[in-house]
């Protein structure tokens, strides 16, 4: 098979991690589109910055999965770090740690507004922060398992 040539057996695990990153990014993208386009929740500025970091992963990662190209981890890490920090900022705004006057929101869409909460704590910014954290962890694991196998 063509794939077996492009993904050496010892890097299967690294590939799997990266595949899960794509899966999570896609689920996150579809979820955010569902909330904004179908439920029609207003999208505040901070959400847009996080989308900028998340959406490209959905399109770029498949190119690195076929054929497997571990360098993509290097290229998408800045996006993930950027998204993680914006999500953290957003969570702090919602939690009231960062005062409302500091937040860069325009057009009457306050970023501090919470539209719904799951399980008592899971609002949209927290979901975003968890998503970026999980993606970061998986990228790290993917990179680690790749280099280890590479040296063997």
């Amino acid at each position, binding site marked *: 098979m063509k*794939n077996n040539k492009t*993904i050496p057996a010892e890097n299967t695990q690294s590939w799997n991690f990266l595949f899960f990153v*794509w*899966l999570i990014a*896609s689920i996150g993208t*579809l979820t955010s589109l*569902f909330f904004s386009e179908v*439920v029609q929740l*207003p999208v505040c500025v901070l959400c847009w910055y996080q989308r900028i970091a998340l959406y490209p992963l959905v399109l770029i990662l498949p190119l690195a999965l076929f054929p497997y190209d571990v360098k993509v981890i290097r290229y998408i890490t800045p996006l993930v770090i950027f998204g993680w920090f914006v999500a953290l900022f957003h969570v702090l705004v919602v939690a009231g740690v960062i005062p409302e006057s500091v937040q860069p929101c325009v057009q*009457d869409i306050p970023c501090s507004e919470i539209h719904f909460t799951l399980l008592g704590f899971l609002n949209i910014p927290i979901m975003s922060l968890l998503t970026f954290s999980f993606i970061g962890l998986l990228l790290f694991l993917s990179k680690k398992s790749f280099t280890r196998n590479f040296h063997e």
Partner: protein
Amino acid sequence: MNNKNIFISAAVSLGIIFIAVITVYKSQGTTAVADEKLSALMRIDAPVKGGEQAKVTIVEFFDPACETCRQFYPFINNIVKKYQGRVNVVMRYAPLHKGSEDVVKMLEAAHIQGKFWPAVELLFSNQHRWVEHHVSNPQSALAGIKTLPLDHDKLDRDWQSSQVAKTIAQDITDGKILKVRATPQFFVNGKPLIVFGYDELASLVEEAVAEAY
């Protein structure tokens, strides 16, 4: 299963789940505005058009500077005409554009002289002359309204009066209660138009008429 198949099946499943969730969500239908918020829909003396005894009321939150409101205007007229007295439309102000707050005051001042409908029609048809890059120019809007046969001095006094300011403030407050974040926003007998569009509005009205008559 090789990796490519895993990827393709994951992508296809995500797409199917996404479409399924949207379908389920949309099939839930429109639920009416909660009872405690219903009072925010109406304001006595708000401009109204259509049958006096109409059992179906469309409430439109609008901004005269909003392009989509202008595009919907003839459509709303057609609905009112089509149902011949069974449907009326109530206009509420939602000045979301910069500068629009003064323009809606002028409209309300025209309304005091019974000239709301000609004034709003005029503002819509000349929208490009007094709205530039989504910013209203109240002075050119006022100049436009003054081409109508009405008492200019009274108009000038009224639009700056505290009574008109109070009316506008109430509409803005009610808009916030009803979560009007974009214009036009329609409510048909208390049910908000969720999926935006001509056809969706038409069917919401049709349902309400079928229910009421």
